[in-house]
């Protein structure tokens, strides 16, 4: 006991930390000795690790990005994950070709910057779109006046027919003062242009009428005229060459017109998890859902556990009127049907505060059960000899409660905390699915969007968020079961 004679605050906290560390080590060892605990702990570590990755990698304004359709324009809509192609599904691949500088430059009447990309159609399917994205476009100035840029794009098909898919003159705002346009420019293929090009070059003016909505299908298919006015399209597999041309006035001294140019062939599958009906990458939303879910769950569980712990202990320790009042309060709160109340409260709250209100209501209504258990435990601990001894030495009520009673109950409180983590996560998801907006991209919101659109057949949209929700609650149920067996020896099987 020589260290205690050095009596100083830092030494004391260090000792305390060491003892907490030792307890934690013993707990983890015990948790790991149960199969359920092992799985639960591994899952929890995975959840925390993924949350950290999500927080580090995702942009801070992601919430607004997610709800902004403009950001998702060059993504395929309602597309399954890329790996379904390996299973033999006929989904055209999604291909992005990025250029830092043009492939070739030609100078004549205009200065023409040329970018060339290639695309392989290897399945019986059509890509959804061709999108050209230009970042940091240089503004051409002739005699201090902003000159227009002409943008053209061509697709050379495997049958050597070249179709113009884009022909647009871009008038930059006349007061553009910076050398670069900072907003990325995004242009989709011109469907009316494609249709007229195809009737002239492939159908050679036959009487067939083409529907501009299906322009992409025509562009990537062998076409046959049926019954004079109809056409039959079958996918034309093979190499496609896509050429993008930027026309600048030849007198400008520019060697690289854009910091970055992207030619995107919007396919029919995307990424690891696919996209939703607005083209949003589901993998991103699910990833960002991890930290949000853990935060909602833990904040709610910790707050309500702390309230339950202290209210229960105080109620039993002081007894009398305090006890009576707190017990009646628990009775009343416990008899209020929570979900209808929660829905009403969330419905009348402004959208920005709804997530906070969900958490607050759950905290206020869910500490009662633990408080009752803690009270009955405190009642018996209160009568123990060591509590009496502490009182005899002259320890105050607060000290006895904090140093002698509450530490005895903490293990039970921890078990209850772990069990109650999923309830807030599931409540949030449920309310989202019901149709209450709260603006955050959570797992529940992804499911809600799937439900609103009625596309239950998009399995990559419906199954993963539900599995994640189930996994999250499974994690805490398993952990809770393991901790419960440690603190309640009667439940042990060994």
């Amino acid at each position, binding site marked *: 006991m020589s260290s205690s004679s050095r009596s100083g605050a830092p030494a004391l906290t260090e000792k305390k930390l060491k003892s907490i560390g030792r307890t934690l080590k013993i707990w983890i060892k015990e948790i790991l000795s149960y199969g359920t605990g092992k799985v639960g702990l591994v899952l929890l570590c995975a959840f925390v690790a993924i949350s950290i990755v999500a927080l580090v990698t995702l942009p801070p304004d992601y919430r607004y990005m997610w709800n902004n359709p403009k950001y998702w324009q060059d993504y395929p809509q309602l597309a399954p994950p890329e790996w379904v192609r390996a299973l033999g599904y006929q989904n055209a691949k999604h291909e992005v070709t990025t250029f830092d500088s043009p492939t070739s430059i030609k100078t004549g009447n205009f200065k023409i910057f040329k970018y060339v990309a290639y695309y392989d159609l290897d399945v019986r399917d059509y890509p959804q779109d061709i999108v050209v994205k230009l970042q940091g476009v240089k503004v051409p100035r002739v005699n201090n006046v902003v000159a227009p840029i002409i943008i053209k794009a061509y697709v050379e098909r495997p049958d050597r027919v070249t179709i113009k898919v884009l022909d647009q003159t871009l008038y930059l705002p006349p007061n553009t003062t910076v050398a670069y346009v900072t907003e990325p420019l995004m242009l989709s293929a011109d469907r009316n242009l494609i249709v007229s090009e195809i009737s002239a070059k492939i159908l050679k003016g036959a009487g067939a009428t083409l529907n501009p909505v299906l322009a992409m299908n025509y562009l990537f298919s062998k076409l046959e005229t049926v019954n004079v006015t109809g056409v039959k399209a079958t996918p034309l597999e093979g190499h496609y060459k896509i050429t993008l041309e930027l026309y600048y006035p030849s007198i400008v001294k520019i060697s690289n017109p854009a910091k970055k140019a992207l030619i995107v062939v919007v396919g029919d599958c995307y990424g690891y998890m696919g996209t939703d009906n607005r083209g949003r990458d589901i993998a991103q939303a699910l990833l960002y859902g991890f930290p949000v879910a853990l935060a909602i769950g833990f904040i709610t569980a910790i707050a309500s556990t702390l309230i339950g712990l202290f209210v229960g202990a105080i109620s039993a320790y002081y007894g009398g009127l305090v006890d009576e009042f707190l017990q009646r309060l628990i009775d009343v709160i*416990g008899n209020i*049907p929570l979900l209808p109340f929660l829905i009403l409260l969330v*419905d009348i709250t402004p959208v920005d505060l709804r997530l906070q209100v969900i958490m607050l209501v759950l905290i206020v209504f869910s500490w009662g059960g633990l408080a009752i258990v803690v009270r009955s435990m405190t009642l018996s601990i209160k009568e123990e000899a060591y509590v009496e001894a502490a009182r005899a030495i002259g320890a105050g009520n607060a000290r006895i409660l904090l140093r002698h009673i509450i530490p005895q109950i903490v293990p039970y409180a921890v078990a209850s905390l772990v069990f109650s983590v999923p309830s807030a996560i*599931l409540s949030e998801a449920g309310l989202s*699915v019901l149709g209450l907006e709260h603006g955050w991209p959570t797992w529940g919101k992804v499911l809600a969007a799937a439900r609103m659109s009625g596309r239950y057949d998009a399995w990559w949209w419906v199954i993963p968020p539900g599995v994640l929700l*189930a996994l999250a609650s*499974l994690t805490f149920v398993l952990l809770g079961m393991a901790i419960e067996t440690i603190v309640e020896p009667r*439940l042990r099987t060994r």
Partner: protein
Amino acid sequence: MGVGTVLARRAIALAVALVLVVVLTAVIMGATGYDKTIWQALIHEQARAYQMSLMQSHIPPEKVRELVAAYKEKLAKIYGLDKPWYQRFGPLVINTLTFNLGISESYDVADVAGVPYPVRVGDAIMLCLPRTIIMITVAQAICAVIALYVGPLIAYRRGTLIDRVIVSYAALTNAIPVWWLGMLLIYLLSYRAGIFPTDFRSVIAYINAFWKDPATNFVNILYYASLPIITIVIVFLGSWFYTVRAMVLRIVKEDFVMVAKAKGLPEKYIVSKHVLRAAAPPVVTNVILSLASSLGGYIITESVFNWPGMGTLYWVAIRSADIPTILGLTYMLTLVYIIARFILEVLYILLDPRVRY
């Protein structure tokens, strides 16, 4: 403390909770100005209709403006908007508490009830209640029967393979949101396989006209109700197993069971005569509480199935901001729950002679 005092105390707490719920709901809607915006929109609409009719009868514009303003003021007085919110909600709360639930102002509420607009709130609730009972209460009852039969058996075989399987099943289903399983099953069994209906709202016709042709209607209702019931049973059976098992396990360790074992009584006899008798109170608590709270409807699950029960009624009332239905339904839901709680207190004392506070 006598049994009477204990029960009286509980009754008071429950009554306070009941009144508090209604008052709180009213305060939430009144103090936030939620009701005011709804009334004002209504007045605005009526005033515009009045203005149109005046313009058509060639009255000078200044006169029209004057008349419309007077009309608006009259309407505001009728709806009580000239008074502070607590004076508006006072009578409303008292009417609700005395079962004078009033008339719903929403077309959607009448639509869920399946009757022409307008509908009395009490009627709407009485129409939706049996539908919730058919879907959720029946499912919970099925769970209870299976769990009470199987639970004690697995508790006696703890540690064996079947015990492990059932505990894992409980952990798994405890984690799955029931509404999500509902979404999956609707897609798989209704849209893909075509076994069950895709539109569950149509069950209204068969339930409302049940007594005209009970046999045919029963079959039809069964067709609509089976998928929701199957979904709920799959998910909730797990936690039912786990609860019953845990309760029985606690009893099995008690001395009197040991004594019975030591006496050499057959296991079946011990289970039925000793263990179940002692395990009954907590198990009954569980049965009654889950049946009572199931009446409140699983709002989200009912909404996923588009099932026209109490949950959907509540959600539709909130969406269309129909104050009488919100208040009335909150009151009835809490009342049912609280009556169940009280029955429970009485049963608890009757069933377990050791509980005497």
